[in-house]
């Protein structure tokens, strides 16, 4: 589906046309879900955020700038919704002192539930251990193929910051990859 027809569906959906809603959902849900799932660990949280992304889409379709690719707009919303969620979850932590629980959470991300477990994705596994700030840059760069300038715009941070995070992320990935690579070699 091209951007033009997607926008038309979106507009109809926002005005209450349910079949248009179905079209938009079909065309976008995998992309949204995967992006969120790469950024957030908990399955329930992923679904909450995806739901939020769609609610935002209906409410703000009129803000979409047709001179830019649709997916760019969509990814902007997705990243912002994930960040909103993170802010809220930090507040929750402070309120209920769930600190310990939260530090365990990245590993509670069940490969079995979201990802087929037989896949041997070493680098991907390491990406998941990066801090959120580094991870989001890596995902936008290597999963969505955005230029560093575009990433800066999507995350609303300076390009210089994106560059240094990108650099840091790669360095960390490389270091950890070499470590596990050696490990695999020894045990393999």
């Amino acid at each position: 589906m091209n951007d033009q027809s997607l926008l038309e569906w979106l507009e109809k959906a926002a005005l209450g046309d349910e079949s248009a809603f179905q079209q938009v959902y079909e065309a976008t849900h995998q992309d949204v879900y995967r992006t969120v799932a790469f950024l957030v660990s908990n399955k329930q949280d992923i679904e909450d955020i995806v739901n939020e992304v769609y609610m935002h889409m209906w409410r703000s379709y009129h803000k979409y700038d047709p001179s830019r690719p649709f997916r760019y707009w969509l990814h902007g919303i997705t990243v912002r919704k994930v960040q909103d969620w993170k802010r809220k979850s930090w507040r929750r932590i402070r309120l209920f002192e769930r600190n310990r629980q939260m530090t365990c959470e990245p590993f509670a991300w069940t490969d079995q539930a979201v990802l087929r477990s037989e896949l041997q994705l070493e680098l991907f596994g390491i990406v998941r251990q990066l801090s959120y700030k580094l991870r989001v840059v890596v995902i936008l760069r290597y999963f969505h193929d955005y230029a560093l300038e575009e990433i800066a715009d999507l995350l609303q941070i300076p390009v210089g910051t994106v560059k240094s995070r990108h650099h840091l992320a790669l360095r960390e990935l490389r270091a950890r990859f070499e470590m596990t690579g050696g490990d695999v070699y020894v045990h393999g």
Partner: protein
Amino acid sequence: MSMDKELREEFRQAAESMHVPPQLSERVRSSYQKYVNEKRGNTPMKKRMLAGIAAVAILIPSTALAATYLADDIFGSSSIIKQHGGSQEDYEAIEGFLLTAKGKLTEAEFKEYAELTKQLVQLKLKITDEKGVVHEEKLTKEEKQRFEQLSSKLAPYFEKISGNAKP
């Protein structure tokens, strides 16, 4: 393989192996329906509000002259409207509209119409400042309901008056 390529490849594989839970589509759909219902639910109320505002606003453009003021019954006197950003001309215009109304409606209808208009105008004046700017947020919840009620009661009269004016 370079790390760039490897990363892209692993992301692709990881993405492809992910299955969006089927129950998610139901959830997104039900929030969507909620969104649509809210949107629809709002519309009639907005329409009534607009009809009310239009009813009062259209009072202004029609013109006529009158020696005795029907409008005095509604506003008290022309000085009231002047305190809310209106002019003597506006007052004359409203008077003109009221005269038209008197001509088009039966006596009983006009009496009812004038009474409802009076109440609506009281609310309207309450939220209009001296520059003529309307602050709807000044209405309490009850007043807002009353406002809508009055507007919808007035709507049929209003149609009768302005509708017949343009045969």
